[in-house]
């Protein structure tokens, strides 16, 4: 209710400022040289965590809007999805540039040789396609296929959860928590889907917010 009274522009600006906080923090630490003794590891970890966080918020929009009966929440979904892609892009760019001196051949070879990296790359390619087709024009061009295409965020989320769990010698509390939250959010879809089948077809909660 409170949220509904706040103008959409203000809500979106707040969202952008919040979503850019990890980036601002990162840039600050780069400028002040506070990236630990192993800047590569530091940057990889933090951009990856920012992407996972953005993904979790993206996946939370639909269940939250339904649960709280607040369609206004859905306005955050697309920008949050794009921030997920943005942080994932930073993450993989740092991997290629700092980890492999921008050598795409050796970086690709390395990715294909390691399960956890392969999971991450496939997830990134999905995010790339979803980001590229996130505009209104693509939505119109792809008509009914658009929705099916964008449901690929679910397998991407599974891959990202696995990628995070496998990132270190053993799962960390943070990666376990993230994977659990992702699992709950995906399960919420399954439950939602079985409910949808018993409902009249006019519900539009899965559609991109048009307001």
């Amino acid at each position, binding site marked *: 209710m409170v949220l509904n009274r706040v103008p959409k522009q203000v809500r979106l600006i707040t969202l952008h400022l919040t979503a850019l906080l990890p980036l601002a923090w990162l840039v600050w630490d780069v400028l002040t040289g506070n990236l630990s*003794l*192993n800047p590569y590891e530091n940057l990889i970890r933090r951009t990856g965590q920012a992407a996972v966080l953005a993904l979790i918020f993206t996946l939370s929009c639909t269940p939250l809007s339904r649960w709280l009966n607040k369609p206004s929440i859905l306005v955050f979904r697309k920008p949050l999805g794009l921030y997920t892609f943005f942080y994932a892009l930073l993450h993989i760019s740092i991997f290629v540039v700092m980890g492999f*001196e921008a050598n795409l051949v050796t970086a690709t070879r390395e990715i294909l040789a*390691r399960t956890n990296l392969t999971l991450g790359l496939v997830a990134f390619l999905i995010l790339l396609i979803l980001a590229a087709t996130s505009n209104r024009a693509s939505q119109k061009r792809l008509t009914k296929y658009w929705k099916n295409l964008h449901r690929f965020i679910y397998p991407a989320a599974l891959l990202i959860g696995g990628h995070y769990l496998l990132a*270190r*010698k*053993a799962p960390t509390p943070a990666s376990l928590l993230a994977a659990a939250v992702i699992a709950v959010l995906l399960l919420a879809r399954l439950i939602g889907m079985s409910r949808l089948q018993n409902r009249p077809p006019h519900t539009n909660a899965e559609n991109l917010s048009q307001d």
Partner: protein
Amino acid sequence: MQNIPSSEITPPHIYFTRREILRKVAMLSASAGVGMLAACLPRSSQTASPDPTVSVASEQPAVASTSTDELGGLLISFDDKNAYNNYYEFSLDKRRVARESKDLKTSPWVVSIGGLVNHPLQLDAEEFKQRYPVEERIYRERCVEGYSMVVPWNGFQLSHLLKEVEPTADAKFVRFETLFDPDQMPGQRSPMFDFPYVEGLRLDEAMHPLTILATGLYGKDLLPQTGAPLRLVVPWKYAFKSIKAIVKIDLVAEMPTSLWMRAAPDEYGFYANVNPNVPHPRWSQETELRLGEGERRPTMLFNGYEEEVASLYTGMDLTKWY
């Protein structure tokens, strides 16, 4: 190949430190309590620690006899080495280990050496330094996670200790164990691992002159985050083999199962020799990021100690015995 027996080759750590003998003598006398000379020694160009709680105030100056290893790799600074640590008993965050470990009580600290030996021994950590010749060893350290550094340890050859306890004929391996004290080491409560940390070496690996028990770093006593008061350093193996805060050393007949072997048997074998040709499922082992320099460099077989240790593994398939 070469006909010179390896015992006649001057080990690189001696070869490259010989010019600094005088300075080393000064260091040794300083640690023996003579102290006066130490005051005259130049302090290394370390910067002040950003977190005052991390460095422990100490009279010992942080000095190393050289600024590089024998291959020209720059030593990691005293402060850097003490601010970035892989030590799951305290934290999974390498930058938090120093803070989380600073209250570890390292004295008194009894270490039991037993198992298949003729003369079992119990020593306080302090006694090792008087009992065995502590010397400086400039070693490369290679983490399985893909980074590396050059570290000036102070320690003594494990072989001195092993000779004193006299392994019996049945003893084939050495098993090391870290302190188990979840109150002091909260990470040991993690359900992910079977603490205490356990590591092992084959007896001939343990007797090798490069294998040391370290008591210090840069001429100062170890701080808790680097494994105080006593830790193993085996420079040709991935650094997780170099177990910290040792309380127990047992000679055993069977190959010990280390914590990492138990946690992920297909990723961590018993040997864990640095080997760029044996890939790890999570990290490439072909190159490494040298901390302090920030350059990525090719990883060397046995971490560059091939000449000294390759003979330990003659005829072994290193891909199988990873």
